[in-house]
């Protein structure tokens, strides 16, 4: 209390006439917001603990609960927002670096929303995707510059290793540790059923999930947790994580409290010890060193696995991507500044990096200018929210999209942005067994399959509307896009015309 007292951000509103004191809300809330006062016989709520994850709201059998944003704010000030003032109190009190979760929530341009998609009218026919063939399969990886023939003139049909996707969507990296066993199992099972990939993140691969290997991308990050020969060979591809859109330029730090049981075993570090991922890979301080890591992985896996290099979208992304392509990567994954995270310093999350739309457009153009676009595939992520975003990304030049936040939302995530607490009531960003078991992998995987299948249908509908019956013909087809409400410069970077042109 006193100078550091902050009025709770959220208020729990309980409709007394509906509440039956069943205490389900109390049992559902790991933040211990709800309690039953036996003396007065009513349910109480400690608003200060509420993170607005809406678990209680969703489970209240009588719909007696709602969570509202508090209107007790500081005096309004266009320069000193309520949030800014609160942050100063927190720091003056603790001396701590502000820590947040999930993607940048600030009011910055979302270019997807300013791009509109074309459709056929008169001059060529649109296609009905429900009754005509409509293809969404893609191969990610290096394509040869020249075809080869043997002495008999037959084509040499061997390819560098490729990633085959039934839909141009993959679940992006979320480590076991930052999310739960059941969340991972949901992703792995869904990826297998969908014929796409999920990604281990940097926390190693749980023994139980090796069986999903053909639909797994294994990740090597600077901490090298759980990285060993068998792990490298387990998946369909290896991803080198150089950066993450939510926190470009900094490392990771999974607190010791989350390194328990299987997480510890999978990361191969002792229980309770912090898992610190250095900011750089300490064997990569220059572009030619990246080549070294790519080829050390290729050597260790006898050239059987495509190598993805994942980077955050930053200012010089086009030159960086060109360097990555020339370093021998098979796939470049670009993560935009709206990408999610289990924990990131607020200042980094909200101020570092650039929108993925602009990064993608710049990279695709640069690689084409240099004539090396076919040497490498492009995957983009960092807040792909719907099938429409996927369509626009592919038309801008992406081969496929990485999706993570949307997948978590499908699993129940309410984007309350407190993953760092480890008390996720939805059983996703937590390691507490009683919370993890709330997420049923059977149900979770079905919901993910539903989501991606629905997106696939939408993708096909939109392609059909454009008269395109294979996703290959959409890739880089920027004439299918028009911008609205953008400056000349923005349109130029995106390489698209304004609506009406």
């Amino acid at each position, binding site marked *: 209390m006193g100078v550091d007292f902050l009025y709770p951000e959220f208020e729990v509103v309980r409709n007394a006439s509906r509440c039956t004191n069943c205490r389900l809300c109390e049992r559902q809330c790991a933040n211990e917001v709800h309690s039953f006062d036996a003396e007065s016989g009513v349910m109480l709520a400690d608003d200060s603990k509420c993170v607005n994850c809406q678990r209680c709201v969703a489970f209240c059998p009588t719909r007696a609960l709602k969570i509202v944003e508090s209107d007790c704010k500081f005096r309004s000030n266009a320069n000193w927002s309520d949030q800014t003032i609160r942050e100063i109190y*927190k720091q003056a009190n603790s001396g701590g670096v502000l820590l*947040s979760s999930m993607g940048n929530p600030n009011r910055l341009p979302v270019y997807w929303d300013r791009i509109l998609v074309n459709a056929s009218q008169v001059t060529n026919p649109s296609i009905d995707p429900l009754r005509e063939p409509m293809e969404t399969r893609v191969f990610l990886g290096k394509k040869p510059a020249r075809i080869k023939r043997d002495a008999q003139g037959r084509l040499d049909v061997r390819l560098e290793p490729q990633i085959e996707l039934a839909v141009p969507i993959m679940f992006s990296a979320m480590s076991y540790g930052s999310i739960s066993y059941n969340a991972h199992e949901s992703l792995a099972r869904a990826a297998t059923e969908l014929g796409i990939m999920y990604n281990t993140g940097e926390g190693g691969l749980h023994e139980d999930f090796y069986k999903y290997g053909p639909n797994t991308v294994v990740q090597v990050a600077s901490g090298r947790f759980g990285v060993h020969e068998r792990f490298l060979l387990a998946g369909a591809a290896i991803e080198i994580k150089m950066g993450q859109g939510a926190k470009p330029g900094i490392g990771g730090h999974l607190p010791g409290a989350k390194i328990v049981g299987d997480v510890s075993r999978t990361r*191969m*570090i002792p229980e309770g*010890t912090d898992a610190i991922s*250095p900011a750089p890979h300490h064997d990569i301080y220059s572009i030619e060193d990246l080549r*070294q890591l790519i080829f050390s992985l290729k050597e*260790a896996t006898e050239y059987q696995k495509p190598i993805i290099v994942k980077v955050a979208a930053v200012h010089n992304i086009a030159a960086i991507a060109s360097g990555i392509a020339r370093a021998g990567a098979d796939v470049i994954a670009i993560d935009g500044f709206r990408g999610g995270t289990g924990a990131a310093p607020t200042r980094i999350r909200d101020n570092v990096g650039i929108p993925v739309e602009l990064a993608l457009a710049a990279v695709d153009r640069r690689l084409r200018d240099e004539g090396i676009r076919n040497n490498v595939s492009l995957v983009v992520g960092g807040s792909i929210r719907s099938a429409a975003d996927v369509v626009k990304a592919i038309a801008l030049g992406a081969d496929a999209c990485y999706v993570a936040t949307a997948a978590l939302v499908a699993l129940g995530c309410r984007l309350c942005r407190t993953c*760092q607490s480890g008390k996720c009531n939805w059983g996703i960003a937590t390691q507490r067994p009683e919370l993890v078991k709330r997420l049923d992998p059977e149900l979770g995987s079905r919901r993910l399959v539903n989501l991606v299948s629905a997106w696939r249908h939408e993708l096909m509908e939109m392609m059909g509307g454009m008269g395109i019956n294979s996703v290959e013909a959409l890739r880089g087809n920027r004439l299918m896009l028009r911008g609205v409400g953008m400056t000349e410069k923005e349109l130029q970077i995106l390489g698209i015309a304004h609506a009406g042109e």
Partner: protein
Amino acid sequence: MTVIDVSGLDHKTINESLRRADGECALLHCCGQRFIAAGMSDKKITIEGIPGNALGAYLNGASIVVNSNAQDQTGDTMNEGVIVIHGDVGDAAGYAMRGGRIFVRGNAGYRAGIHMKAYGAKSPAVVIGGRAGSFLGEYQAGGVIVVLGLGSDGQALVGDFPCTGMHGGKLYLRTDRLTVPFPNQVTARPASEEDLDELRKLLAEYCDQFGLVLDEVMNAPFTVVTPDSQNPYRRMYVAN
């Protein structure tokens, strides 16, 4: 024993030959070829000449003897096995290694043993016969690093900023004179009997490799550096 003259051969060809060979191999006239023995588990390899960067990356049980100096990132993310270097080793030796041994007769460059970790029965060790460069054992999370300073002629055993971010494992220095400051979150103290017993076992292996006399190597004061906490940054953040 398979003998391969590797002059003019690239890393892919060398590793393919190594995989085909069974048991013992000798590589002659090596000059900078990278990734030798990457991920290999069942070979015994001797190298004449200078192997390139990332020697024995992801090594999984193979043993490598280098009869001269080795370059950077030796034993990168190594899991098991032994790398013996009769000369000096470059920067970032043993980066993120989880198991096995790296024995260096001479000096090590910057960032030796960076982010070494241990788990269960796996506990890696890097023993440096001479001196080590700056940032020794940065983010060390487990395992043992030993710097012996043999023939160091009174020069500092370690460079600047040793043990920054250390949160596990042990560093042994064969001296009782610390010439550079260590960070606040670690403690340096004279080695106890228990420490010396552990060290003796490790150094017995080391001395065996290089024909050194164990008692002579042990006959000096040793300092042990250990982290105070497995969670050095716990108090750095505030939820927002």
